[in-house]
């Protein structure tokens, strides 16, 4: 195999891909050839580096130079300066990736990575996900080899149990127990499934793992197959993740070619195969029983449990179902031992958790932190704080099933149990940061609107109940709220949680309950004073011109699309409330900040 003196790693995750990393790769290859460097420098498309905010990202080794926001037109300069002459192109380096003496910082020295611990994401951004050899070079399939040649199935299960690994899909059920139940269940045929139906708004953790390190999931599923006695696996992934699906298919083909999937793996009598099943994007298919119905070819609807999948799953056979991130931890536990894994995290939540950081935050992206890290560390140290120096108001975790964490809990160490205690949940790992300009009633309404749309309609509490809740919230945000609405919301929430068929319905009221718990005053302001304190709910807004500040320039009147502003030049102008559509165009145009939102 040819040795290269330098590797150019270009992020091929979804974020960087959509901001143009494909073009960047193409120009790199072209420029390298032009400079006759193609035999010295290799360009590799990797998975997500995490710092999606400043993509497309390019890292050049051996220096480890971290270039951000690279456009195709920047590439010739990097090639001629850095790769040919060896001078870093400082203007293109990420601002936190350079030492004062203009040498490149290593990743671990950067604020964004300093507090992170990449376990599930260990290969993302390091290897070429479409090349099985690179995965093997970093220790891939060694765990499978060890399991098949040295360990009994029970030993594998004991190892996972001892590690304390809990399901990363949301509820946090101990993974080892699930494996044990499936292994002990009676059945002539068993299945191992992977839930890659990531549906929370703003979440892209599983997607990034599949895109950046598909083999780690395949290897873990094969190990699970051996442990529970299954010979067939299915990965249920949404069709709207095209890059993930493509890389998974490539990975499966490569693994089969090497005999790491298929008959008699490593010369043992264990055989295992994995198939991909595409989901059409219904949120409810992330629920385990609905997911399995969908794999079987039926409509994705949940059914009552028990029987649990470990007893009766896909095609009525005992089935092990874990999510992508859970699997991504497995090989590490097998190779390093459960004790090593237990060293990370809190007493009841071991290991790390990947979060998709989004919303009002400087470093939008993918982060992996040890359990027990505080929200403050995530938001202010890793996330780089809130844009515009605005105040932190709340963070939303757990998607439509979770809740909002207010500023007073910024210092709570994050793990499964502490989040439940403060009225939210871990969920699969979406983390949306909100600043003072967000209306919490509107946020609750947004999430409820999502669940109403995604409700499969099988059980009435979810189908009808969430709809009624949404109607009340719409009423409140449009200024028609009445006394008693909050109490009605609470009653409905309680009943839906208690009676809905599946997790989607049972947790649907959570966004409302948690915002009521911490931001009840905002609800009351909407209902009693007909005011939206954050200035978001349009129906409750009024744009007014402050007479003392208005110089009468008339710019506002010119920018108004509906001619709602009138006045004489050099005298204060006025907004006609009956015509105003509250678009805010005048406010952004006014040079004197004389227009206020009330």
């Amino acid at each position, binding site marked *: *195999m*040819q*040795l*290269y*003196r*330098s*590797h150019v*790693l270009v992020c091929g995750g979804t974020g960087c891909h959509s901001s143009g990393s494909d073009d960047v790769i193409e120009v790199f290859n072209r420029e390298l050839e032009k400079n006759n460097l193609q035999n*010295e420098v290799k360009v590799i498309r990797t998975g997500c580096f995490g710092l999606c905010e400043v993509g497309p990202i390019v890292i050049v*080794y*051996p*220096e*480890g130079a971290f270039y951000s926001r690279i456009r195709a037109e920047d590439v010739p300069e990097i090639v001629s300066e850095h790769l*040919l*002459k*060896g*001078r870093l192109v400082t203007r293109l380096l990420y601002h936190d990736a350079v030492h004062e003496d203009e040498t490149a910082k*290593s*990743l*671990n020295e950067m604020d964004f990575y300093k507090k992170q611990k990449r376990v599930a994401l260990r290969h993302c951004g*390091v*290897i070429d996900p479409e090349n099985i*050899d*690179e995965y*093997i*070079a*970093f*220790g*891939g*399939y*060694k765990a499978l*080899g060890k399991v098949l*040649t040295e360990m009994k199935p029970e030993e594998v299960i004991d190892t996972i149990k001892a590690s304390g690994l809990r399901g990363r899909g949301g509820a946090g059920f101990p993974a080892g127990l699930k494996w044990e139940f499936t292994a002990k269940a009676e059945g002539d045929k068993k299945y191992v499934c992977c839930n890659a139906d990531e549906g929370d708004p703003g979440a892209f953790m599983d997607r990034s793992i599949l895109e950046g390190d598909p083999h780690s999931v395949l290897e873990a599923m094969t190990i699970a197959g051996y442990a529970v006695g299954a010979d067939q696996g299915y990965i249920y992934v949404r069709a709207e993740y095209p890059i993930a699906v493509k890389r998974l298919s490539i990975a499966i083909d490569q693994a089969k070619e*090497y*005999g*790491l999937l298929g008959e*008699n*793996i*490593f*010369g043992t009598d264990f055989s295992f195969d994995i198939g991909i099943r595409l989901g059409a994007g219904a949120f409810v298919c992330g629920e385990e029983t609905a997911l399995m119905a969908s794999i079987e070819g039926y409509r994705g609807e949940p059914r009552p449990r028990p029987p649990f999948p470990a007893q009766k799953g896909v095609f009525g056979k005992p089935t092990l179902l874990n999510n992508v991130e859970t699997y991504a931890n497995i090989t590490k536990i097998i190779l390093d031992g459960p004790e090593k894994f237990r060293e990370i995290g809190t007493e009841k939540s071991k290991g790390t958790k990947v979060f998709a950081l989004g919303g009002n935050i400087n470093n939008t992206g993918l982060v992996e932190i040890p359990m027990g890290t505080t929200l403050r560390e995530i938001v202010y140290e890793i996330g780089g704080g809130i844009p515009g120096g605005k105040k932190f108001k709340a963070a939303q975790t757990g998607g439509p099933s979770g809740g909002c964490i207010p500023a007073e809990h910024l210092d709570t160490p994050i793990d499964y149990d502490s989040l439940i205690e403060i009225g939210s949940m871990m969920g699969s790992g979406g983390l949306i940061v909100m600043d003072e300009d967000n209306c919490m009633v509107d946020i609750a309404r947004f999430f409820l609107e999502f669940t109403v749309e995604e409700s499969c309609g099988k059980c009435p509490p979810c189908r009808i109940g969430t709809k009624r809740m949404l109607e009340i919230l719409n009423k409140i945000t449009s200024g028609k709220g009445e006394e008693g609405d909050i109490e009605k919301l609470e009653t409905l929430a309680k009943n839906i949680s208690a009676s809905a068929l599946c997790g989607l319905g049972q947790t649907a009221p959570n966004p409302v309950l948690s915002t009521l718990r911490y931001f009840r005053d905002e609800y009351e302001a909407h209902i009693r004073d007909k005011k939206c304190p954050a200035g978001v709910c349009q129906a409750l807004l009024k744009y007014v011109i402050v007479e003392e500040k208005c110089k009468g320039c008339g710019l506002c009147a010119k920018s108004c699309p509906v001619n709602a502003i009138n006045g004489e030049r050099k005298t204060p102008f006025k907004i006609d409330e009956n015509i105003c559509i509250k678009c805010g165009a005048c406010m952004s145009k006014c040079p004197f900040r004389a227009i206020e939102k009330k």
Partner: protein
Amino acid sequence: MKSLEELEEIRKKTLESVNIRTERQGTRVVVGMGTCGIAAGARPVLLAFLDEVSKRNLNNVIVTQTGCIGVCRLEPMVEIYTPGEEKVTYVKVTPDKVSKIVSNHIVNGQIVSEYTIGAYEEEER
């Protein structure tokens, strides 16, 4: 895949080529590759270093490049940084000097004094 040995073989083979991406604390070989360096023949020197390092399986050594070091008349120049030690600068390096520098200096810790900038300046005087 029929055996663990087979897997280990693939791992070893590929590791060499991807090892460059792991953080290394070892010796850094920096070749001056400004216009002056390239004109004086720095590229064959760089390639010779790469070749020698991989031939000897020196996984902890980084071969990299830098711009003009400033003494263009002494190019090709090579600086060797060993952690905890002072930097050593070799001047007028040619590919045939490389193997000696690698074996004596990088592997055995013996600086090849006659190629260093100090020796050269002595000689000039």
